[in-house]
Every structure is written in structure tokens, then in C-alpha cells.
């Protein structure tokens, strides 16, 4: 429905290098509202780099990156009011309590303390850890931390969400809740940038899958389009084929035999 309007994210010929190492090799991408984008690729392909550039964490890239039609290289921070981010590694100020952290983040977005506080408390209770609201994050398990991160990314009702491996550590029940949440958010017209290594999940929830390898987009389309193009059954198989990987059995076999050596 939004495909005719202006894209919420547009990336043109994005290149980035760390020292001599070329990480992104000319990414071109247009994303419209209301989609769940599965962003996949092997380790070191440049997934997180792309996301970090979009978030304004990484600078020094070449090419044009626009979010909500605004060029992010101008250093404007306005677009950041409308994005949310769950980082891959659970980086938080974990000496704080969940309450302190979440209200702090909410207040940064300009919400007043009382409303963030009650919102955060309700949300965290829905995730089943309401009793931990006033406890230090450092005492949390990985899944609990992840829940706090997810809430922190959604508190201000953003229009674009960047999820980097958001399910890590979550129990099966919470995973179902989370998947339902993002499906409904997408139905409301929000854009979700979903980056993960768990192919089954990406296959099921994504409206569009983008596969990058060695800093370039090698596949872009719905799951069915990818299936047709590659004549493979699952996203896992497609992933293996497109990244040119087919000897997993041999590798596993050698692995075991080396373990058995003296």
C-alpha cells in the first residue's frame, strides 16, 4: 500500500571500509513502510555494519543514506526520535535497575517520567518479569536483559525498528509473544528491519528477505521469489546455495575426526 509513497529507508551505493578491509561494497536498498524485512547473511557479511550506519552509530561511510527522506550524514538527530534498536550484544547500563534504565531512555525521547514509568512497568509485567522491575539489570538472565532491551526500543512508539538477533535468550513463550507483537506492528504500518541467523524465523515472519554476502546484496525478494529463483526448499538451503556453501557434511566429518586425534 505504501509502495508508491516515498521509501522510509533508502540506501544508494553504500560503501564502508575498516582500514583496508572493505565491509560494504555498494549496497542499494529501498524500504517502504509496513514491511518486515529479513536481513540475513553469513558472519562478517556486513549486516550489523549496515544497521549501525542507519542508526548513526557508525560514520565515515560513502554513498547516500536517507531515513524518512532525510540524509543522515548531515548529523541531524531528528530521525532518531522515530527509530528503535535492539542491539546484538546486550549493551546496557546494567548497574541501573530496569526501572531506572527504561525511564532514562524514555525521558531521552522526551516522554515525562510518570508516563514512561507506568508504561514500562506494564510492558515488563506483560513479559512476565514485572517483579524484576526495580532490580538491577546486572542480576538479570540473558532473556530478561533481552526483554528490557526490546521494551527500551519500543517505548517511544517508533516507526522503524531495527532488531539484531532479538530472540536470543528468550524462552519459547516469549518468542511467540514477540513474533505476534512485530506482526501487529507491521500491520500498523511500521517498518521492521529484522536481522538474524535463525533461518526458520526469518522465513516465517519476513515480507521481504534481503541476503547480503561479502558486503553486497545477493538476493532480494519475498521468500517465494527466492524459492523460485533458487529452486530450493527452505531458506536455509537458499542461504547455503547463495553463499556458495555446500560441504557442511564434509566439514562436520573432519571436525569429528580431528577431535578423536590423540
Amino acid at each position, binding site marked *: 500500500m505504501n509502495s508508491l509513497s516515498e521509501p522510509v529507508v533508502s540506501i544508494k551505493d553504500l560503501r564502508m571500509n*575498516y*582500514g583496508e*578491509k572493505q565491509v560494504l561494497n555498494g549496497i542499494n536498498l529501498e524500504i517502504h513502510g509496513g514491511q518486515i524485512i529479513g536481513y540475513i547473511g553469513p558472519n562478517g557479511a556486513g549486516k550489523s555494519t549496515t544497521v549501525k550506519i542507519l*542508526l*548513526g*552509530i*557508525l*560514520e*565515515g561511510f560513502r554513498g547516500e543514506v536517507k531515513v524518512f527522506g532525510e540524509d543522515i550524514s548531515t*548529523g541531524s*538527530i*531528528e530521525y*532518531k*526520535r522515530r*527509530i528503535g*534498536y535492539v*542491539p546484538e*550484544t546486550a*549493551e*546496557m*547500563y546494567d*548497574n*541501573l535497575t530496569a526501572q*531506572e534504565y527504561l525511564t*532514562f*531512555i524514555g*525521558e*531521552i*525521547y*522526551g516522554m515525562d517520567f510518570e508516563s514512561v514509568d507506568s508504561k514500562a512497568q506494564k510492558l515488563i509485567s506483560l513479559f512476565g518479569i514485572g517483579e524484576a522491575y526495580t532490580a*538491577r539489570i*546486572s542480576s538479570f538472565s540473558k532473556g530478561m536483559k533481552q526483554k528490557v532491551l526490546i521494551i527500551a526500543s519500543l517505548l517511544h512508539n517508533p516507526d522503524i525498528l531495527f532488531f539484531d538477533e532479538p530472540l536470543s535468550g528468550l524462552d519459547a513463550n516469549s518468542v511467540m509473544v514477540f513474533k505476534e507483537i512485530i506482526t501487529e506492528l507491521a500491520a500498523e504500518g511500521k517498518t521492521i528491519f529484522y536481522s538474524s541467523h535463525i533461518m526458520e524465523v526469518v522465513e516465517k515472519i519476513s515480507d521481504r528477505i534481503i541476503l547480503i554476502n561479502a558486503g553486497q546484496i545477493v538476493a532480494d525478494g519475498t521468500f517465494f521469489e527466492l524459492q523460485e529463483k533458487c529452486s530450493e526448499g527452505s531458506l536455509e538451503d537458499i542461504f547455503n546455495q547463495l553463499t556458495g556453501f555446500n560441504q557442511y557434511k564434509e566439514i562436520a566429518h573432519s571436525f569429528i575426526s580431528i577431535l578423536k586425534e590423540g
Partner: protein
Amino acid sequence: MKDFFILKLLDKGSSIFKSFGIDYPMMRKILQIKFVMDERRVPTIMMNGKNSESKNSFRSSLFLYAFMGLFIGIFMFPSFPLFLKMNIVIGMLIFMVMTTMISDFSSVLLDMNDKNILLPRPIDTRTLNAAKLIHIVVYLFKITIAISGGSLIFGLIRYGFWFFLLFLFEIALICGFVILFTSLFYYAILTLFSGEKLKDIINYFQIALTIFMTVMYQFVGRIFNVSNMNMSLTPQWWNFLLPSAWFSAPFSLLVDHDFSRYYILLSLVGIIVPIITMTLYIKVVSPHFERNLQKLNGSSEKNEMKIKTLQQSISNIICFNRLEKVFFRFTQQMLSNERKLKLKLYPSLAFSVIMPFIFFLSFFGREPLSADTLSQITHGKYYLYMYLSVAFFPSLFMLISASENYKGSWIYKALPIDNPAMILKGAFKGFVCKYVVPIYLVTSLIFVIIFGLRIVPDLFLIFINLMVLMLTTLCFSKKELPFYKDFQYAQNSNNTGIVFLTFGLCGICAALHYALLSLAPLGIPINIAASLIIAIILWHFSFKISWEDIAKDAQ
């Protein structure tokens, strides 16, 4: 959440921040969070609770600074010329503030942790930078006040209220100048270099700056000719390069009413330079600092581990246990990669090389070297200054309990290690081989060049005494595993008592050594034998530790 006094104080000046284009409420929130976290620095692994400890240790280090400050303050009373007095006091002040800034607060300045949390949020870089800066300023100011407290009070008594007020103003100026100056330098380095090299350069820069500060301080005393009893001042062009002179000159204007061109110019420099630093900081550094900081993140460098190294063969000679050998190597490899740790270690190591020579300089550097003084030096017992170098080592070993990668320390618990003493022994030997021995050799070499081969037995004795000191320190300090805790906990940890203890013991060793020199030719061999026996006994006692001791000390 707790509302801090200092934040309320800042509120009074909120309009100033706003006029610089800083989002004050946002900055206040970030600062509040930072202060809350600082109060909660919790030891990370193997322990729960006990939140108050780190706060107390910051307090107790403040008390120590204040105590030192009292001694500095005593300079207020004798009837030196005021300009010399202030140069000494302010010189010490700058020196101490600068070194704490480099060793303790560089990590705050170059912190990468904030990035993923704060940068995706709508906070402009200027506000973020301001918050960072104020965070440092608050701590540094507390330390500065503690150090200068004595001089402030004694100055108030001796010279009255206006002096006090001017001094207070100067202290604020000095603090700001030091912080901005360091940031400017970091910025320059961040712009010029990138990648892994950048991190090394920062390290070297910090060491260089610390050395520079030490040397600069040596010049402070030389503004004056103390050769004949009345100290006279001969203005010289290089006085204008000494920050302590800039900040001391206004006192001569205020108290001595000496309006000579020399003092007026110096005072002007003292105002102009901080202003220039500040404008440069606001206009150039602050908007781009974060961006360049990002360079610290990305790196891809391959280090191949060589199997047959010198390290390996040394470990085969001096480690008798397989586990000990493993941790000997582990410690050395960690030490060569831990930048934060190097940042704390290297300046002290550099000090330990420089210190004896500084003392030479201050005794003999005043007059041009004549053949007379030269032979006086080479035939004297001045090589005992080596103990000044030695005094720095023992407390350094305690530093290696902290690490950037402290989270990896779960391996100690998970691995089948029944005797933690092996870990500590390996780490101790690793540390000694990596830093103590090479640096001791370098200093010794220079000493041998100056004093001749006759001092070799003495150097040998001093080395054994060094081992005695290191082992004693180990006995008295907490039993801590290497690389197991976070720096933020180690940052202000209360090692100061032990440092003083080792300095005292070092003095005793030196005195004994000196006394036994008169018993030539038997004195030195006796001392060597005695020290060696003590070292061997200490070696057996220092490492009698169990997992229970470690768990207990970690709390």
C-alpha cells in the same frame, strides 16, 4: 532516583550551558545516570552486594590527596618569594591533576560503551560531549580541591581572603585547562591515525605525556637561582612555556603588587591560553570527537602465535608446574594486548626509569658539571638511587587483577584447577619477566655506564630486595586472580596504603644496604644472603592460598 547536590549546583548555571547550544535537561539526565552508576560500582565476579565499598575507596583516596595537600600547603609559610611558592604549589597541582587525568579518566574520555546505548537516541553530540566532560570535571575537581585544600587554607591564613578567591579561580582554570588540553591532544591523534595503530599511539602518547609532565616539573624549581642564599629571579623566555608560571604570576600582581611586565605578560598568557584551548575545544573538537572515537572500534589485525618463542623457553626454565607455565604465558599474552592496563602500567614503568635520574639532576644539575662533581658522582654511593626506581614496581603487580575482558574470568571457575596458587605464581613470574626484568636491566645498564662495573653486586642485591618487596606486597594485598575484575571497580581501589607500605619498606632496604656498604668487603654478600633467604621464605608464604581465600578477598 537520587538527586545529586552537584546537579543542583549545575542547575544554577543551566543558562550558560543553554547558550552553548547544549540541551541542558538531557545533559542533566545523562549525568544523573552516570553518577548513580558510579555510586554502584560493584565488583563483578564471584561476589554479590557490598555497593558502598567503591564509594568509600574514592573517599579514602580523597583523604589521602588531602593529606598530601597539607604538605604542599606548608610551602605557604616560609618566606620564599611568593612567585616561587606558587610555582611549586601549582606545579605539583598540575602534575597530579594531569597524571590522574591520564591514568584514570582517559578511559571515560575514550569510552566506547556509551555508543550503542546513546547514539541511536536523539541526543546531539554536543550535549553528549558536554555530559562526558562535566562527568570528568566533577571528579577531577573533587580531587583537585582535595590536593589544593591545604594550600588554600594556609593561603587564606597567610595572605587573606582575596588570595583565597584568586586561588580558587585559578584552580578551576587549571582543571579546565588540563582536561581540554588532554582532549585536544587525543583529538589530534584520533584524527591522524586509525585502526589498531591508533590504540598503540594513544598508549605511547599517554606515556610520553606523563614523562613530559615529570620533566617539566623539574624546570619549575629552576626559575630561580638558589645558588646564593637569597633567591633571585631572572626572567627567561622558557618561563613562558611553563603553565605553573602562568598561573602563579597573578598572585605576584595581587599580593606583592609587583606590576612588572614579566608578571603581567605571564598572567595574560595564563588567561589567553585556556581561552584558546576552550574555543578550540568547542569549535573543533567537541563536534567531531565522537565520530573519530569510532575509529577505536574497528580493527583487523592478525597476530600469529609463535610456538618456539623466547617466552616459551623462559617459561620452561623458570616454571616447574604445567599449570604455572600455562598462566605464565597467558599473563604475558594478556599483558601485551590489554591496552587499558598498559595505560595504567606504562607511565609508572616510565617513572621508575626516570625517577633516579631526576634526583641526579636536582642534586647536580644546578651548576655546570665540573670534573670534580663528576668524580664525586661516579665514586659515590649515588647508585643507591636505584631504590627510587625499585619502589615503583611492587604495587604495579596489583593492577593486573583488572582487565577489559574481565567477563572471561569465568574460566577460572569452570576449569579443573585445584590450586589457585599456580595461577598466581604463573602470573607473578609472567609479570616479572615481561616488565620488571627488562626495565630493571635498562636502568641497570645506564647505572653501570655511569658508575662502572663495581656496582654490579649492588645491583644484584637491589634486584633481590625488589623481589622481597614485591613478595611482601603480595602477602599484604588481597589475593586476586589476574584479569578478573572490571576497571571501573579497580579505578579508585584502595591500594594507596600498600603503596606507602612498600615505599617505606623500600626505604628500609636502602638504609640497610647503605649501612652494610661500610662493612666492605663482607657487607654486600651478607646482605645478599639475608635478602635471598627472606625472599625464599616469602615465596613460600605468599602463595599459600586456596580458593576460599580468593573468594573471601574478592568480596
